[in-house]
């Protein structure tokens, strides 16, 4: 018993000595406050000791530290803090530079990884802390994170890398792996500029950054990056942010909990040229996202392609492929143009929204009991030049018709407008125009009143014998079929088409040269709206 207890005492004493020794070796090391220097030089640090793997590092105000090491397989430091106006920059033109941080990076200064000057440079920042709360790069007011890889490298190679690489934990077979994500967080009053960078298991969270240029030192640009693993992006209240030409890819069979891109309350945000591909619950979620644009976007193999809630937005050139749910708009008001949705179970879902949609094409639907090509639960959808018929649209039994307001016309739930290009041949005098008029209105229009079914009439016949193409912004547009305010299908109206000569009277009268009657039909859809192909051909005698 005595032997056992004295053995235990010895072990405890050894443990205490070891504990004391290890705590004595972990220090908080400050930069020299005289301008900084290279990370690997003792003179750069107060006390002359170069930081080791267990040390916490503080870069002092106005010091500039050049990180000049390749710490691949090693740890550069534990926690890292940058004071305001401190700068940590990865040494340029020095080949492979890797910094490995086993703790929190608390950044009030600037971190600059500029590998854009040389293709031989490789700048990499690794966050390897085991504790997810410590695996974070947090930039606060006045600070900045600038990461730039070099353009024009072969294939998709990027020579700037942000990676989260915590120790691997074993999990039972079939279970989802432990989330390896690290958070890169930037708040109001900071610079977040990430370009041509590989982000691996990095969740970028930007909040309240003003990119209008009105506030010095505040900007957010996320351009030409490759987000892989669990990497994703969240921009909340980031005025005029630019997110462009990024690729988000996730091959892992286990989905991440959030969308690849989450945008919220960021007015005039520009989202363009991005591709999202893989196992994300949603490709792009926009929540309270007003007055912003999404252009040239491809979303593939996500559970939902794009979800948008907001007003005054513009979506243009959106391609959604292999997503069970294609495009969902709720509580939304905006314009959508050139959308192709392929291989979905529900192509387009609209709820509580007023949308104008041009060239919506939904193809290769994947049959599903709860799937619909287009589902409109209420409010209004105006389709322009789209290969859609009333049969493609599902209206639920509890559809809420538009309320009756005295003195206001009841707008249709869904209406189809067609672009019309008329070719006029034969003996065509100068200044000929094409005039569309509704043929069978319940009551004739009073003189001077506008035809509610027609826009941009009369349209001039141009030198190419055609009326203006849609790209001129002044094409002839006529209404086709529609679902009325109670969602009852109504056929397309008939139109009287007058080919008219030049103005001859003071009140704009023109001589009618030829008249015909037409009814819009699905064949009027123009796959290439500006193709030099007429919708109607008329030959004058």
């Amino acid at each position, binding site marked *: 018993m005595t032997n056992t207890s004295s053995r235990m005492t010895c072990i405890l004493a050894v443990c205490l000595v070891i504990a004391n020794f290890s705590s004595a070796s972990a220090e908080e090391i400050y930069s020299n406050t005289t301008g900084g220097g290279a990370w690997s030089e003792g003179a750069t640090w107060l006390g002359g000791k170069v930081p080791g793997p267990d040390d916490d590092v503080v870069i002092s105000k106005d010091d500039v530290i050049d990180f000049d090491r390749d710490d691949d397989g090693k740890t550069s430091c534990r926690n890292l803090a940058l004071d305001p106006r401190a700068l940590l920059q990865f040494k340029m033109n020095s080949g492979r530079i890797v910094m490995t941080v086993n703790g929190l990076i608390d950044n009030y200064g600037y971190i600059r990884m500029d590998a854009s000057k040389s293709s031989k440079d490789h700048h990499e920042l690794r966050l390897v802390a085991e504790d997810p709360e410590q695996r974070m790069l947090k930039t606060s007011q006045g600070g900045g994170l600038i990461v730039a890889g070099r353009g024009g490298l072969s294939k998709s190679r990027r020579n700037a890398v942000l990676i989260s690489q915590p120790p691997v934990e074993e999990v039972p077979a079939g279970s989802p792996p432990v989330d390896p994500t690290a958070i890169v967080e930037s708040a109001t009053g900071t610079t977040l500029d990430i370009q041509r960078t590989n982000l691996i298991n990095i969740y970028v969270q930007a909040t309240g950054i003003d990119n209008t240029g009105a506030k*010095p030192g505040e900007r957010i640009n996320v351009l030409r990056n490759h987000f892989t693993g669990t990497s994703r992006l969240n921009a909340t209240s980031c005025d005029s942010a630019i997110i462009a030409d990024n690729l988000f890819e996730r091959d892992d069979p286990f989905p991440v909990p959030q969308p690849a891109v989450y945008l919220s309350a960021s007015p005039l945000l*520009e989202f363009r040229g991005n591709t999202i591909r893989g196992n994300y619950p949603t490709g792009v979620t926009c929540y309270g996202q007003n007055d912003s644009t999404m252009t040239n976007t491809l979303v593939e193999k996500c559970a939902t392609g794009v979800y948008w809630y907001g007003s005054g937005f*513009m979506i243009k050139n959106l391609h959604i492929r292999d997503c069970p749910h294609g495009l969902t708009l709720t509580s939304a008001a905006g314009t959508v143009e050139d959308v192709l949705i392929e291989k979905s179970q529900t192509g387009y879902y609209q709820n509580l929204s007023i949308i104008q949609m041009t060239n919506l094409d939904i193809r290769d639907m994947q049959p599903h009991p709860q799937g619909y090509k287009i589902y409109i639960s209420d409010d209004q959808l105006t389709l322009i030049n789209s290969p859609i018929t009333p049969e493609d649209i599902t209206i639920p039994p509890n559809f809420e018709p538009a309320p009756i307001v005295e003195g206001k016309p009841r707008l249709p739930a869904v209406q189809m407008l067609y672009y019309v290009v008329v070719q006029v041949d034969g003996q065509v005098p100068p200044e000929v125009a094409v005039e569309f008029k509704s043929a069978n209105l319940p009551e004739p229009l009073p003189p001077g*009143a506008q035809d509610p079914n027609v826009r941009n009439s009369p349209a001039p016949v141009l030198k190419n014998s055609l009326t203006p193409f849609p790209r001129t912004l*002044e094409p002839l547009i006529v209404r086709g079929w529609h679902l009325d305010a109670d969602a009852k299908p109504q056929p397309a109206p008939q139109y009287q088409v007058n080919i008219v000569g030049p103005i001859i009277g003071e009140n704009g009268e023109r001589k009618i040269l030829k008249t015909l009657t037409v009814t819009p039909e699905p064949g009027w859809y123009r796959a290439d709206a500006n193709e030099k192909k007429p919708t109607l051909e008329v030959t004058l005698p």
Partner: protein
Amino acid sequence: MKRVCANTVGICLFMIVLGLGEASTALAQRRVTFPPAEAPPPPPVKAPDKTEASGEDTGVIPDPGPSQRKTQTRTPPPPTNLTVMYKLEYGETLEYVHTDGTVQTFEQWKSFPNDGYYLMASVNSRLEDGNNYQYATKPLASEGFDPIDIPLLFMAGDYDFTFSPEEVDNLRKFLSEGGTILFNAARGRDEFSQAVVREMRKVFPEKRFMRAPQDHPLFNARYRVPKVMTLVNGIQFQQPPEIYTLDIGTRAAAILAPIGMGAAWSSEPYHPQGKHLVGESAVRLGVNLVSYVLGATEYGRFLAQEFPVYDGRTAPGDVFRFGLLAYNGSWDVNPSLQNSVLQGLSENTGLDVDYAPVAVALDDPELGDYPLVFMTGHYDFQLTGEEADGLKAYLERGGMIVATAAAGLQPFDIGFRRELQKALPEGELIKLPATHPLFLGGWNPIERVEYTPTALRDDPTLEYPEFYGVFLDGRLAVLYTPFDLMSGVNHESNAYAKGVSADDATRIVINAITYALSH
């Protein structure tokens, strides 16, 4: 009985006159084919309570009240009410026939009746500068427009109009005295914009509207607005903002927004056949326009002054004479610049000078009489073949040109570089080091330069002279800066000039003159 008859005749005549009056009013009601903007009646507006210059210290000191402890919650002082804008009443009563046959008559000037109100509300909420900006309405034909009281006039509409002679006179006087007018084609109808261009020729026959360049302060006075969301005939897209200005000096005295902002400001529906700026884009541009005008009032007053101009030569013989290049562009944007330059030169160097203003053309044979000439402007320009030849000959014969972009605007920079290349294909415009003798070895050595806040906002690192030169046979023949020198030399209080501060601008110009005279 006769009296009764006379009375009856009088009454009849009066009735006829009345009837004619009504008939003429009815005849004046032009029928239009574009429907009026639908909106509820405007909120009540009233004339300003008192006459007070906007942007000036109002002198309103809140009653301090009883003394308070530091821990007590204090009520902030109330905002100062400032009426800064008149929405103009103009035009005629129009009528429109709705599809159901209803004929609606409406006042042309009202457009969106609430647009002025909402514009001011946006300005107040976005600027948050402690003022409560307000607007009132006023007929343009009435008297009493004074830019010191109300610096901004706002005129909106969708339809053609013409100015009466009184309206032309009022507007000319107002703009010449430093005021600004903002024309907004409420729903982007071209007939309104075309009428603006046509009618403004009556106001300033010699001036033209020019498209404001992207770096114009109209696009960054409060917000940076590089692109705006635009809706044309139902098609939405983004594009750079399209604003036209008619300038006095470099100040935009008349601003034309041909793509409508009224619907967005008033939260009214966009007309499918209109041209609109959409949502936040329109609000930001509107706030910028008002901010610009508020920030340009001092500069407007400077330009409205009468400057002394000497008719003939003020000094005989071999004295320094100021020559300013006249070309087909905005060459005369700094009023009486010669007085400031020559006074600075005379006082600091003792050189004898002649204060007579001289505008000299590049193809003028007298150009050779001037060893150095100045050139400035704020818009792009093109030299004729004769002008380009004249410039080349002048420089090769030993002349020197000092050129500077007025207000630091890019169009002049683009035009100057291009036209110089055309005149001197072999001459290369190279950046001068800050150690060039012109800066360090001149009359007053200059190491660092103080730039204006507007220039520093674009580039906070500016601290050295940013000058370019063309050397011919080793001699500096062209000295050019894309920043504004002359508004500094002229003490123009132009808040939006991207240039060099007054003192440093004067030192540089004097150095350039002494350098030219000594080389």
